[in-house]
């Protein structure tokens, strides 16, 4: 064994183990040797009987319905500004806490600068153009959302009421050093901590932002927040707003898009090598040359199969784990909760049960059955994945 080739081999091995994509992609090439004998392997392998075919089809339908109802809940409270625009649920690609913004995936050319971004009727922020003078805000299918409190987010006309019968106190929500700040209140001295604030319908002034969107909870600034005793008067008027939603934990948000603008989705159809279809990972007979890329989702007849881990030229490796991020957990009563399998992320006083369905969603194709909860432990739950039909086609599309 000469020294140099062995060093190269060890370096490539380490590249593979550290998941360096060029090496991981290249190593898929050898699977071409498995293709000629794959048909024979399929004949020799034990076949799966699927006695619960009907039950599975029902579960797939319920997964779709659960995703649909969750999307409706996500859109609640928001409404589109005119008939040419509609509300769409879009995925968050990257939360940027330091820049106080979110990067979201949007249909190309379908969104406008300044469009409101909401979740469950809570106003989160506004779309912000990548370039200062651009009207359209999308670039490469991505747009950025300036969250409330971000100096780049525009001011919002807002109001709060002490009770339903009380006259509204109007104010302007601006950005301050401590986040969303209350300014220009219509009545001095009436700022009360704990009240919920909503957007105010200011369409009469040409503002298209609908009224009634929840902004957060009013909080009067502490005396220690205001330097100098001479500012005692302004203390009565100034306040800040505490958001009820941590926008950085959201996987999906709602915003306005042009009606009928399609998403550009890269998708392909392929099959799994029979020799690899019995394991927690599987190998597809299609790769980069067929339009498959790393992180793509793999689905079969409404069942989520896995995610592409490495795509080679003519073959890809798929891992059958759930994708990172949140999934929907559906109880037998139809209650839908968006969470991760880790118990630290579960809502308070909510504990899932064995047998509850787990749904993975896609911005275009909706919900897919990802399995049922197999075990619930102190750290979280594990999911029993549905079986793969080795003879059936698989759909692969970008996330």
């Amino acid at each position, binding site marked *: *064994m*000469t020294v140099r*080739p*062995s060093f190269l*081999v*060890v370096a*490539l*091995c*380490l*590249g*593979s*183990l*550290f*998941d360096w994509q060029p*090496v*991981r992609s290249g*190593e*898929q090439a*050898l*699977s071409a*040797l*498995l293709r000629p*004998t794959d048909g*024979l*392997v399929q004949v*020799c*392998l*034990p076949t799966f009987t699927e006695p619960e075919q009907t039950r599975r089809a029902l579960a797939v339908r319920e997964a779709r319905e659960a995703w649909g109802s969750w999307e409706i809940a996500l859109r609640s409270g928001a409404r589109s500004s005119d008939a040419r625009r509609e509300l769409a649920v879009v995925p968050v690609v990257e939360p940027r806490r330091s820049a106080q913004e979110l990067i979201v995936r949007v249909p190309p050319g379908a969104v406008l600068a300044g469009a409101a971004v909401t979740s469950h009727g809570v106003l989160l922020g506004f779309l912000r153009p990548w370039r200062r003078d651009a009207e359209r805000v999308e670039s490469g299918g991505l747009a950025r959302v300036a969250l409330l409190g971000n100096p780049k987010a525009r001011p919002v006309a807002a109001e709060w009421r002490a009770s339903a019968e009380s006259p509204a106190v109007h104010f302007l929500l601006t950005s301050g050093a401590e986040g969303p700040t209350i300014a220009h209140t219509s009545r001095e001295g009436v700022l009360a901590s704990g009240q919920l604030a909503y957007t105010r319908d200011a369409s009469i002034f040409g503002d298209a932002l609908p009224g009634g969107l929840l902004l957060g909870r009013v909080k009067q600034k502490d005396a220690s927040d205001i330097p100098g005793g001479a500012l005692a008067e302004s203390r009565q008027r100034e306040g800040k707003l505490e958001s009820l939603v941590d926008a950085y934990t959201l996987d999906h948000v709602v915003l306005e898009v042009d009606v009928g603008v399609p998403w550009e989705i890269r998708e392909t159809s392929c099959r799994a090598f029979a*020799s*690899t279809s*019995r*394991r*927690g*990972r*599987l*190998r597809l007979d299609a790769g980069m040359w067929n339009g498959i890329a790393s992180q793509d989702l793999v689905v079969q007849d409404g069942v989520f199969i896995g995610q592409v881990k490495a795509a080679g030229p003519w073959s890809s*490796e*798929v891992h059958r784990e759930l994708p990172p991020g949140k999934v929907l957990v559906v109880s037998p009563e139809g209650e839908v909760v968006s969470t991760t399998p880790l118990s630290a992320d579960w809502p308070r006083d909510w504990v899932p049960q064995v047998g509850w369905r787990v749904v993975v969603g896609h911005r275009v194709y909706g919900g897919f059955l990802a399995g049922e909860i197999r075990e619930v432990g102190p750290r979280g739950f594990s999911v029993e994945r549905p079986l793969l039909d080795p003879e059936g086609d698989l759909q692969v599309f970008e996330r």
Partner: protein
Amino acid sequence: MIVALVFVAVFLGQVFVVSRGWFGSFAPDPLVPIAAFVALYWPRRTVLLSLVLLGWLRASLLVEPAGGQVLAVLVAYAIVTGLRTHLLEFREFGYVLGAFILAGCWSMAAVLTSSAFGIGISGGRELVLGGLLSIPLAGWAMNLANRYGETS
């Protein structure tokens, strides 16, 4: 020779996959006696390439990062090659012993790589059971080694 090795390894690898489908982790890995043959009798010039191909093929069959299996088989080879002169003295028995040592080291290296990198690298029972396959193949291996291999 390498081409022949790849064809045999692909065929036996697929047999391994089928036997795994029926017997699960009790299916012996037939790549172990091949790797033992390569480690003991293969021409030194191409032994590295041959072992890389064997590890890579096993990783392809098991859908794992190839680096893990290749590294594990190279570690096992490094240990077997240290004992090579002694193993060659025992002829068939040396081959069987070499196959078991290789299987054990391969398996151990796979476990260590798995825990070091947090990636599932298959080793364990299949490899050790694969060592058993070297017993009926020992005579054949000696004949092949005398004809094409390096036995000194």
